[in-house]
């Protein structure tokens, strides 16, 4: 599946490892949360990049102690209408300060990219359509937003305050 990242389609450098596949000596791998729990020591001992795939019922706080040692976390959308991973994403970025790649996988639709991006996702396995066009749409649809999230955009309330402060100067 093509991977949308930084507004372009790229080849996915990561290998998604099934739980019963042997761990390769090197190469970037994504393992399930269950495998991460079972083989944490071995996985962290490798020198290659490591990613963990969380189901939307897996506890994000379990990754917190090792968050700086992970290069990727993938969150799953079993159905596009199941929004649990949005909360997981914000917790990972905003509370646990995860700085690696946050990937959306599963039923990822073009019209959701805007929300995903605002919640901290920066890589997307888009299930259908033309992801690059969809990305452009997601970035440019709204010139302002109403909520502060970890994406750093100043919400409308902050913009208004700035206007008032400038007027008072």
């Amino acid at each position, binding site marked *: 599946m093509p991977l949308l990242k930084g507004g372009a389609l790229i080849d996915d450098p990561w290998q998604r490892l099934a739980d019963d596949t042997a761990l390769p000596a090197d190469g970037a791998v994504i393992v399930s949360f269950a495998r991460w729990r079972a083989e944490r020591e071995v996985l962290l001992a490798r020198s290659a990049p490591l990613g963990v795939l969380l189901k939307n019922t897996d506890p994000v706080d379990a990754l917190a102690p090792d968050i700086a040692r992970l290069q990727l976390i993938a969150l799953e959308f079993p159905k596009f209408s199941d929004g649990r991973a949005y909360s997981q994403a914000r917790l990972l970025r905003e509370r646990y300060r995860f700085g690696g790649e946050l990937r959306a996988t599963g039923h990822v639709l073009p*019209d959701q990219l805007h929300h995903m991006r605002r919640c901290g996702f920066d890589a997307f396995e888009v299930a259908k359509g033309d992801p690059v066009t969809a990305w452009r749409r997601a970035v440019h*649809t709204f010139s302002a937003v*109403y909520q502060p*999230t970890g994406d750093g955009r100043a919400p409308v309330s902050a913009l208004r305050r700035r206007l008032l402060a400038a007027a008072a100067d």
Partner: protein
Amino acid sequence: MYRYDEYDHAFVAERVAQFRDQVKRRLAGEITEDEFKPLRLQNGLYLQLHAYMLRIAIPYGTLSSKQMRTLAHIARRYDRGYGHFTTRQNLQFNWIKLEDAPDALADLAKAEMHAIQTSGNCIRNTTADHWAGVAIDEIEDPRIWCEIIRQWSTVHPEFSFLPRKFKIAVTGSPNDRAAVRVHDIGLRMLRDENGEPGFEVIVGGGLGRTPMIGKTIRPFLPKQHLLSYLEAILRVYNRYGRRDNIYKARIKILVHEIGAEEMRRQVEEEWEGLRDGALDLPADVVAGIGRHFAPPRYQPQPTIATETERLRFENRDFALWLRSNVVAHRQPGHAIVNLSLKPEGGPPGDASAAQMDAVADLADAYSCGEIRVTHEQNLVLPHVAVADLPAVWRGLTLIGFATPNLGLVSDIIACPGLDYCALANARAIPVAQRISQHFADLARQHDIGELKIKISGCINACGHHHVGHIGILGVDKNGTEFYQITLGGHAGDDVSLGSILGPAVPADQVVEAIDSLVRTYLAVRQDGERFLDTYRRVGNTPFKERLYATA
């Protein structure tokens, strides 16, 4: 009233453009109906029995005369010349074409209106006390807080795919007129021991299939924490609310299953990570929103409105109307005028384009250009000078909105029911019409006194039958419409859910049944008792005995 600034204008315009593009892609087959559904729902488009319905948000039930004229225009241009005010303080148009929806939304945007999040599994239009800003008993105007919530919840990226819809209500007065205990979140304004206003936070109330009264999880929340606290509640719900069964997906089920204490613990824990952050509400931001809701400049009024007094003395209809439809105002010499959208035998909550325009004209002439929509499907002119009451009454009489029946037996709430709704078991509107005709005698209605009848066409309870003094629920028995009757529900501070009286009655016996209940009440009531008081004193038995003896 809240006025959009350049950011709000840009946002709704961009939202319309986005939806226009989505509709285009849907019509071109690039998006499946399944994928399109949440997109159109979050823009207020709902597929009904015969056509698309467009549900327009009327935030906290406040409208300007200009906005009312825009609604009239939409009714004429894109619908069949009328609209339907709902129990959510919204307006629904029942005959919209999908292709027309983006144009209708663009017209709305010009009047600072939208249909964002009026449907779908997201945070819906926040409702408030319809006498906000003019009621005598108010601590603070709840609309300030509703507007803050409206902005925060608009296209919230984390909470657009919740387990189920989510409704928040705010009351600015200790006397709850917003039914805060039967919402997903209810906020009740009160003062702490230092006199500082804040909120009691109530979670997990709701009607529908499993009616529940909300639990207080925080007795007092200082105002500046409102949004971080709401975000904490929503996050707990988004992560742990049930998604395996649509009927168990509302937050009330989560609260019920884990218990109010555990809910409180989880919310408080989540809140610890959110409080005092970017969602904190600085006083200047609140004041900036608050300025929009400053009271209008009232004209000085004479101490005695001679013409009003004379007419009250001479005209019985006017006197009745004053008694039931006109309420005391905070500003001396002014009154709150309630418009009844429940004419004898009419469908509750309907208004034609001509009626909407006429209300807008009356608002301009006599109510500082302002109108309110109530969750009881009526309208309000909130700022009328007492001296202008005769003129307003004449104007309302001409358009049929002066029926003096507010809060009386014919002021019935009814959901769209089988006439429009794909989920209905039975009709609701025609039942309301027949009851209203039966009790047409206004002197008798005033003698019966306060009595709230609420009708739902199915268990989803959009007509709030659980909190009707008399609740009527449409059920299907082998393809025939039957109606189950509940007694003793109430949506105020002393909230209660109605209890089922006995076997459901067939459609042709509903009016007789209601008549029997009213007669029982009249026979056993004591001095000064309303229907609800009598019911609470004597219980089901006398009502049941009489009803099922005659049936």
